[in-house]
C-alpha cells in the first residue's frame, strides 16, 4: 500500500507548526519525534496508563489514541507549556516537587496535564474528587498519596 500523507497545521503550546504526516502516525509520536517535544511520555500505547495525556482544546485526552492528522487545526497543550515565560513552575509542578509527588517521574507529565485541567475546572476539590480525577493515570512509584497531597496543596495555593 502506498503511504498516505497529509499536510497539517497544529498549534502546540501556542506555537503553530506545519508538517506533513503519515496518516497512521499517532499524535504522541508526532509530538515526540516530529516536534521534538519529548516531555509527553509514552507508556502502554493503548490508552490505559495515562502517561501520554495532553490537552486537546483544553481537555485532557490520550495522545496515543489519536492520530496526528486528527489534531489538524486544533490547539494542543503539553507539559513543555506549563511553566510561565520566566521558566517559573506552575503551582502544581511546584507542589509535586514539594510533596515528593514523583520518584522516577515517568508518569508525571501525564499527571500534570490531567490535574492542571482538573484544577481549572474545580478549584476547591475534595480528596475523593482528586483521586477520581487521577484514576486514569498510573504511577508505579509513589502509591499516589504524595500526588494527592500535592494536588490538594496546589489547589489551596491557586485559590490564593
Amino acid at each position, binding site marked *: 500500500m502506498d503511504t498516505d500523507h497529509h499536510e497539517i497545521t497544529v498549534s502546540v503550546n501556542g506555537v503553530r507548526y506545519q508538517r506533513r504526516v503519515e496518516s497512521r502516525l*499517532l499524535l504522541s509520536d508526532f509530538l515526540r519525534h516530529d516536534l521534538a517535544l519529548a516531555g509527553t511520555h509514552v507508556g502502554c500505547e493503548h490508552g490505559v496508563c*495515562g502517561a501520554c495525556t495532553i490537552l486537546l482544546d483544553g481537555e485532557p485526552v490520550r495522545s496515543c489514541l489519536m492520530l496526528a492528522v486528527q489534531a489538524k487545526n486544533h490547539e494542543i497543550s503539553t507539559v513543555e507549556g506549563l511553566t510561565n515565560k520566566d521558566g517559573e513552575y506552575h503551582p502544581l509542578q511546584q507542589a509535586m516537587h514539594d510533596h515528593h509527588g514523583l520518584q522516577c517521574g515517568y508518569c508525571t507529565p501525564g499527571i500534570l496535564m490531567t490535574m492542571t485541567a482538573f484544577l481549572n475546572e474545580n478549584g476547591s476539590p475534595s480528596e475523593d474528587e482528586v483521586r477520581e480525577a487521577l484514576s486514569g493515570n498510573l504511577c508505579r512509584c509513589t502509591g499516589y498519596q504524595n500526588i494527592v497531597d500535592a494536588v490538594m496543596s496546589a489547589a489551596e495555593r491557586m485559590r490564593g
Partner: protein
Amino acid sequence: MKPAPFKYIAATSLEHALALKAEHGDDAKFLAGGQSLMPAMNFRLAQPAIIIDINGIEDLAGIRPSGGTTRVGPVTRYRALQRDAGFAQLFPLIGEALPHIAHPQIRNRGTIGGNLSHADPASELPAIAVALRARFRVQAAKQERWIEAPDFFAGALTTDLKPDEMLTEIELPLAKPRTGSCFMEIARRRGDFAIVGVAAMVTLGDEDKCTAIRLAFCGVGQTPVDASPVADGLIGHTLTEEALRDAAASVQAMIDPGGSVHATADYQRHIAGVLTERALQTAHQRVHDGH
C-alpha cells in the same frame, strides 16, 4: 509506527461518510472517539484499509428533545452527556453509569455511538440502551432503518450493522411517571470493565404495586442480557424483600456468564443476584424519593 498503514479520509458530511462506506464496505472503519478502535489498531488486531473520520461532522453530535423522546447523535462524547445536567435528570441510568465508564481522559473523547457500535458485552451503555428500550437509527447511503436496542447487539463486538451502514441516532424514550432507576456495577477498580453491571427500572402504580420492571446486565454474556422477562413475576405485587430475593434467584438461574481470570462464572452469578436485589431496592426507593 503502531498501527498498520491505512488511508485516512476526514468525512465532511454524513452523506460523504456513507458514500465512502458504501464504496469500501468492510475494508473501511468509521473513526469516532477512537477509544476502542485505536487500541485495537495499535495492537494491530484491527487493520482497516480505510479510516473514515466522522469527528468533523457537526450534525452527528448533540442532544435533541423530540416529542416524548430524546435523540442523541452518535458522536456525542461521554463528557458532553455528563455536562448536560438536564440529560442526566431525564436519564438517570446514564448519568449514574457515566462515571463508571473508563476515566476522564477517555470520557473526553469517547462517544455514545462508538460505544454502542463497538458492542463490548462488558460495556455499560449497551445494557442501559436495552433497559431503556432505546431505538437506533441506522443509515446507509440510500436507505435507513430503525433497530430496537436488543436486536442491535448480535454477539460479542458484533452488531446488526451491515458493512455500508452507520448508527446515526440513538432515540431514548422518556420513563413513565413514578419510575425509579438504578445502575450499579462491580469492577476490580473504578473504570475497569464490569465483572457484572445492572441497569434496573421500577414503575409503581396504585398502592405502590409494581406495574413495570426492567432489568438488563452487562458483563454476563456475549451481548447485554435483558432479564426483564424473568423479573415479570414482580408485576402486580409490592416489592418486599422476599419478592426481590426471588427475582434475584430467577436472574441467577437465567444468566449464563462466561467467567474470566478475574471472576469465575459462579462468582459472577452470585454478584448478579446481589446486584439485582440492591438495584431493584434502590430503584424502588427512588420512586418515593422522587428521583
